[in-house]
């Protein structure tokens, strides 16, 4: 089983030099900690910043400088500020290379649900619908099952969806899954996890890659 940090580390293997990346709130944020040394990766924050840096040192918080999770942050050299329309413009026009976000449910056709639980939660979609409708490469990172022990990898989303057939890859504590025409394809499995465990925890169509390997970090 992967820890949250290992899940982030797994996703960090997708990073390439020169990439522009948007990281969602939660586990996705941790990916920033695993950018390989010497690699230039620019983090976009959809509230209007390219070139997000780490959290500020205590006493150096700036109320005018926050990320999309409303956390105080810093900038790196070469950063730029812009308005929210420009920000989503660069997302829509495919300038952001990789989007990593969490989800409540992912369907085996790539549908994602992460914004609403009817009658329970009405927080809103924020930028998630724009991101999933536009990003070239969307990776979801989430726990494989919810708090009630139910699979979050489903044949179809039960919650209102955020976007249709958009997720390319899912990383959970059990491993790495591509979304294919045949549903979830288990490509790498976490150390100490059996294929049966994955099968039992997955309600959506699942196939096992003939080249299944154990995940090495």
């Amino acid at each position, binding site marked *: 089983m992967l820890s949250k940090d290992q899940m982030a580390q797994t996703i960090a293997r997708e990073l390439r030099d020169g990439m522009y990346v948007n990281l969602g709130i939660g586990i996705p944020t941790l990916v920033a900690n695993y950018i390989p040394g010497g690699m230039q990766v620019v983090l976009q*924050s*959809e*509230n*209007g*910043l390219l070139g997000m840096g*780490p*959290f*500020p*040192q*205590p006493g*150096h*918080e*700036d*109320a*005018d*400088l*926050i*990320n999309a*999770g*409303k*956390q*105080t*942050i810093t900038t790196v050299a070469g950063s730029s*500020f*812009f*308005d*929210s*329309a420009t*920000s*989503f*413009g660069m*997302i*829509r026009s495919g300038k952001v290379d990789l989007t990593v976000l969490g989800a409540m449910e992912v369907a085996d056709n790539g549908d994602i649900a992460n914004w*609403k639980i009817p009658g329970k939660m*009405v*927080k*809103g*979609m*924020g*930028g*998630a*619908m*724009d991101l999933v*409708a*536009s990003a070239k490469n969307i990776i979801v990172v989430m726990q494989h099952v919810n708090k009630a022990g139910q699979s979050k990898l489903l044949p179809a989303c039960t919650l*209102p*969806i*955020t*976007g*249709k057939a958009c997720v390319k890859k899912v990383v959970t504590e059990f491993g790495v899954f591509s979304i294919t025409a045949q549903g979830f394809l288990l490509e790498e499995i976490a150390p100490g996890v059996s294929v049966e465990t994955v099968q039992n925890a997955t309600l959506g169509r699942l196939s096992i890659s003939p080249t299944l390997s154990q995940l090495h970090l």
Partner: protein
Amino acid sequence: MSKVYASAATALTDVPNGATLMLGGFGLCGIPENCIAALVQMGVSGLTCISNNAGVDDFGIGLLLRQRQVKKMISSYVGENAEFERQLLSGELDVELIPQGTLATRCMMAGYGIPAFFTPAGVGTEVAEGKETRNFVSNGVSKAYLMELAFEADFALVKAWKGDAAGNLVYRATARNFNPLMAMAGKITIAEVEELVPVGALDANEIHTPGIYVHRIFEGKAYEKRIEQRTTSKV
């Protein structure tokens, strides 16, 4: 004809009950604190507020919600606000949730005089209900898009870092967010600034909102600039 007002109270004096307002800011960052305080003071009610968020219980638009001044919120994300949730579930408050990029762009398009445009956000979701969906080919690939309309707002209330009597505005860091978009979009745009500088003090190359969009401007007072999530690195 001066655009400069002495205070939020004098600048907002003709905002009527039932008005549609745009309010700049993302979370509590870059919100028009003085304008909100004036609205609370005035007690104007039945407002429709277009704003990315709804503030927190005791700050930002939360102050208007607490006084039951808001009839409808049009936002992308309204977490962090228990009173909001209570009013919504009890049916006192109407809410329309919109993808954040669509919200920003609907403001911008009002400022650009473009009544409608197509965006992929929300295709195939609840957001698409009742909207025209249409395919366009981009870079050889056909893809579905929703038609969305420009917003209309009676007043846009925005917050800038610096401004001048000509109405020119400059924002700071991520406090820019929705402010320049809404500034373009209001039938009447009211800007509060941290510092009102002499005309000519702002570099014409560096102005974010040209003065033509701003009808009224005043220097705000006593900014709290509350931080919602104070996060720091380990020293």
